[in-house]
């Protein structure tokens, strides 16, 4: 589905944050990127989205080279990106946010909007309100709805749980999980290691801009090294 090969990228030329990072994302699965602060997790997802220049390496999506894609052309490639913060247009109403996202849907816009409102009832109830008036969890839902409006095959999510209450985090991540049953592929960066490992099918651990460990999330959950480094020595019980 998506393959990042030996990606070197950074905000400033000659100062790479990512060094030779490689990631494979399987279709209709949740793949998580975790790691300590400064590991380059968000930089990786931004580099895939075309927001951080890639100096070497390659990003292949569905057989097409999308290395250094222009961010405004991602949707045309079936990719949606949900940033960590400021991921909705606060000054626009909820309806205007969605209509903007639906502008290329043509005659199907009404149908897709109704489906999104059915999926996110709180948004339907407040559709005439400014998006800035929504709670943290509702904003994340609107960001997800904006992403789904373009009917993407791949969604890139940057720390969807950031700043959310535990219940809202659970709802957002459950939603992400559920999307895979409809054939949508999810690549997410997550600070919350426990949540990420529980939610994902496959997980990559980055540190200092390099690949460290990767494997099936279920296996990493019980891995002693992972527990020692990233979970403060506490090993998780699968399904806990």
């Amino acid at each position, binding site marked *: 589905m998506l393959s990042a090969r030996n990606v070197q990228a950074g905000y400033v030329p000659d100062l790479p944050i990512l060094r030779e990072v490689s990631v494979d994302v399987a279709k209709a699965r949740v793949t998580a990127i975790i790691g300590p602060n400064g590991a380059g997790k968000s930089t990786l997802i931004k580099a895939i989205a075309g927001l951080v220049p890639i100096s070497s390496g390659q990003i292949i999506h569905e057989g097409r080279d999308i290395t250094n894609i222009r961010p405004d052309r991602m949707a045309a490639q079936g990719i949606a990106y949900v*940033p960590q913060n400021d991921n909705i*247009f606060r000054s626009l109403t909820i309806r205007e946010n969605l209509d903007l996202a639906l502008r290329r849907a043509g005659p199907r816009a009404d149908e897709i909007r109704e489906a999104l409102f059915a999926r996110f009832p709180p948004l339907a109830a407040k559709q005439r309100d400014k998006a800035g008036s929504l709670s943290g969890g509702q904003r994340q839902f609107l960001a997800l709805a904006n992403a789904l409006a373009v009917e993407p095959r791949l969604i890139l999510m940057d720390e969807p749980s950031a700043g959310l209450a535990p219940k809202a985090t659970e709802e957002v991540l459950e939603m992400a999980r559920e999307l895979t049953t409809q054939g949508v592929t999810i690549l997410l960066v997550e600070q919350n290691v426990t949540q990420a490992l529980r939610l994902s099918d496959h997980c990559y651990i980055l540190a200092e801009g390099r690949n460290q460990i990767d494997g099936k999330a279920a296996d990493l959950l019980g891995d002693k090294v992972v527990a020692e480094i990233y979970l403060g020595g506490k090993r998780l019980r699968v399904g806990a």
Partner: protein
Amino acid sequence: MIQHMVDGVLVGSIYALGAIGLTMVMHMLRFANFTHAELLSVGAYIALVFDKLFTSLAPILATKIGPLSMTLALSLAMIVSMALTAASAVVIDRLVFRRIRQRGDMLSMVFASFGVALILRNVIGLIFGLGTTLYSKDIAFAVIISLDPLLMVRPDQIAVLGVALVLMLVLHLVLSRTIFGYALRAVAENASLAQVNGINLGRIVVAVWLIGGALAAAAGVFYGLTNQITPVIGRDLLMPVFAAAIVGGIGSVYGAAMGGFLVGLAANLALVILPSGYSPSVPFLIILVVLILRPNGMFGEARP
């Protein structure tokens, strides 16, 4: 006093048109664009040229519209001027500002805007001379609205206010009812997010210059119609237009419109207590007071 208030509202509509384009450019491209006021001069002179051209090609177009001194030729010339000034704004961006913007040097953008403003002003002076001129040499008589208190208004002023309000209404409808308007507002709020939502930033920047240039041209023609046409229109309107944008809050189209009327009112009401020579200082005072008391203006938001 009431006469000053009415005059303030009428001139305020011209300031508002100028300030709307300025606030959009300043908010989206994040630099104080001193060239913007010169676009009012450019618009006024392009309309002058096409007014003469249309009148000579079809003398029937010299017919006045009702009680106005404005002719059909000038109306058409104004539309052409709005289009050409809008195009000029895009060309100036392509030739100067975009190159500097790509280097990320925002301070240089401000200096460059000073330079471009001076070049435009002097080129206009070189081509048209430094003297004043008028669209129509006919005397436009004021209509007495009230005798006590004495209140007089020229039909041209009423027309200018009406057309300015219509232009603002059209812009409001575009911003609030169309996907293009949503995209403009989205880019103004968060350009990076707008981009990942598939909005082509380059096209939106062009659209902002086009809107700003067209409204500046309309403001320039209206100023020329109700005052005089001189190569220093831009210099004279620079401070009121900046004050209007700052009072409204940079980035707020509605704030800029409101700011235009407020600055117009304040500058004219100041004439009640100040000699007319001090009137141009009022916008300076307004800018200072707003920046001290409410740095983001009435409707603006703090930006990172």
